């Protein structure tokens, strides 16, 4: 039972039109060819102003598997989902779907605002193909899970968006689908409900094939066991190395291009991150740092004469542009006095425990105004240098920022030894 293929997608493609009016006219022509049955001819090539929104996508999904569909906005993810759900027809290729399909393309679809939550559950249920009796049996569970409580008899128009999300999700997951399609639906719920939802998805996954679209890579990393990265309609990566897929997804962003935001009073002449010893020979684009090695930064600066002294702040961001660490010299020492033409500094951040991935370092050169107790920025070099961490021994991408070091000692065997429980040794 666990090995049956529920979704089979072969070389599927879909065209869209860039221009509204032309698109409508093509719509009319498509209608005519659909009615006459001559739809095949000319479907494979593009008419003027058309493009492939989904191009040549193939995959299979079995019961118990979860595919993470990732890609930038407009990569064709939702279009692909709509085809899988039978809402629109592919322009080429073939899609085979088995079993009951539960799809949440958009939450709250089908909610009528002036009807109550309860009435809407019945409406949604019958849209998804359930009989009234079946819904009766599930009603209690659905309401419980959604945490709507006594608001269930309130018109949906008075619901908060989070409440709508909870109700919609609750309805969809309780319909016992064989295939569950979730399109970016958990973004709205609060964290408590998100947790609950992930547990629920994990539960459903045992008996269903799940396709999950999200822009939140930690979510993708936690629940999917294979990914399909789409880029301009095409598959850019496909496979069960979720970490690699996520890495490729992030490498599409140009948001972390180095850029000088301000260098009026301080200029960086030279900036380098020293790779760890064991990776010193590897020819990589960015320096590689090993787990629990120091991050060493060489920085050559020239500061305007009018500035007496300065501090340096290094801000480390991950690919999600999330700030994962800040070093500020202000916390550790007196300001460096500006007593020479060029400062040749080395900053050491000991024992980096960041997880695997690519990081960017932004450099703030600032000096502190004693009166206002504020920092004035002398120079800001955003995402100036990148480095990569090689940290785990095969854990892949984890939903964390750092790997905490630690050891286990077994007291049951060696009660005589007086080793303290908090041993800390390098890996």
């Amino acid at each position, binding site marked *: 039972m666990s090995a049956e293929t529920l979704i089979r997608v072969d070389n599927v493609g879909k065209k*869209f039109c860039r221009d509204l009016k032309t*698109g*409508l006219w093509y*719509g*009319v022509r*498509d*209608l005519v*060819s*659909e*009615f*006459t*049955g*001559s*739809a*095949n001819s000319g*479907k494979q090539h593009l008419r003027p102003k058309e493009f492939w929104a989904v191009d040549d996508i193939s995959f299979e999904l079995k019961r118990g598997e979860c595919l993470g569909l990732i890609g930038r906005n407009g990569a064709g993810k939702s279009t692909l989902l*709509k*085809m899988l*759900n*039978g*809402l*629109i*027809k*592919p*322009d*080429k*290729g*073939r*899609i*085979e*779907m*088995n*079993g*009951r*399909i539960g*799809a949440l*393309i*958009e939450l709250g*679809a*089908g909610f*009528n605002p*002036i*009807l109550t939550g309860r*009435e809407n559950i*019945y*409406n949604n249920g*019958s*849209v*998804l*193909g359930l*009989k*009234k009796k079946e819904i009766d049996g599930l009603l209690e569970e659905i309401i419980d899970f959604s945490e709507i409580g006594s608001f269930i008899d309130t018109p949906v128009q008075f619901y908060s968006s989070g409440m709508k999300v909870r109700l919609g999700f609750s309805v969809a997951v309780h319909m016992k689908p*064989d295939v569950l399609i979730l399109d970016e639906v958990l973004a709205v719920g609060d964290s408590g409900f998100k947790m609950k939802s992930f547990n629920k998805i994990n539960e459903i996954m045992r008996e269903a094939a799940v396709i999950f679209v999200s822009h939140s890579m930690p979510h993708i990393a936690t629940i999917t066991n294979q990914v399909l990265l789409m880029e301009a309609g095409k598959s850019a990566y496909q496979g069960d190395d979720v970490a690699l897929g996520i890495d490729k997804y992030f490498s599409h962003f140009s948001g972390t291009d180095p850029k000088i935001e301000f260098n009026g009073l301080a200029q960086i002449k030279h900036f380098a991150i020293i790779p760890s010893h064991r990776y010193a020979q590897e020819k990589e684009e960015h320096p590689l740092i090993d787990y629990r090695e120091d991050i060493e930064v060489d920085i050559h600066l020239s500061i305007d004469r009018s500035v007496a002294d300065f501090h340096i702040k290094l801000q480390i961001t991950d690919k999600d542009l999330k700030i994962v660490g800040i070093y500020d010299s202000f916390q550790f020492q007196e300001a460096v006095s500006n007593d020479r033409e060029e400062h040749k500094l080395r900053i050491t951040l000991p024992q980096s425990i960041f997880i695997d991935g690519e990081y960017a370092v932004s450099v703030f050169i600032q000096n502190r105004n004693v009166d206002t107790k504020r920092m004035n920025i002398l120079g800001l070099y955003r995402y100036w240098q990148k480095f990569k961490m090689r940290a785990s021994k095969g854990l892949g991408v984890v939903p964390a920022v750092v790997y905490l070091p630690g050891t286990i000692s077994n007291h049951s065997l060696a009660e005589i030894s007086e080793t303290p429980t908090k041993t800390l040794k390098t890996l």
Partner: protein
Amino acid sequence: MEKRIYTPESNIQRPWIMLRDMLADMRRGQDLALRLTIRDIKALYRQSFLGLLWAFIIPIANTLTWIFLNSSGIVSVETTALPYPVYVFTGTMIWAIFMESMQAPLTKTTQNKSVLAKVNFPREAIIMSAVYESVFNACIKGLILIVAVIALGYAGGWSMLLFPVALLAIILAGTTIGLMLTPIGTLYADISKAIPLIMQFLMFTAPVVFTIPAEGKAAWVIRHNPLTPLVSTARDWLTGGAPEFLNGFWLVTAIFAVVFLLVLIAYRLAMPILIERMNA
């Protein structure tokens, strides 16, 4: 386990499979259609103070307008077997039933745009719910008509039993025409803008507020309007007049029944293409 296959080929190339699927979907969609209908009827009257009264107000207002126009001599209508107010009242009521059933498919499809674009369910349910709602509306109006003609003393006796048949034929005709316009109507707003215009023309060329002149161009047009037999027979059965267009009535009904099946198939085929272009 249910298996679905989606390919670019038009389903019309496998007509029997498509018909089978369509019938299966109609069966599956029954429950949903009923829910949609109840939902919409409830929704229609929930946020309205006068509620169901609106079903009466509009035809009565229409009737009053025409009575006024006729009595003031602005528009003069040839004498009819029925007193003019009764003629106009029955005419406008029957016409309203036709209009509502004609607008229902397009309105329902547009109304449910967002659901159609996001949830896969038997599309036929939308049409069925449109028909249910038309029947519901027709029941109210039909009841008013029956009560009115009895109260006014123009009841038609036994032939009144056939009146519901005529109403069903009118709903069939309306739904068919409406369904025919729906695919293009969802793409281009021009259709819904043009409908009132076309409807006005059709109304004046059917025996709704005007009687059929004995001769002339107008007479020819009115006699060849496919709606003429429907409206006139419905009124005749209701008020006990001798139905002048009985053969035409059955012929037109039969034609509409066949066309209805065809447009139902067309609707099914058109839906994926429409959803793709709908900006829901």
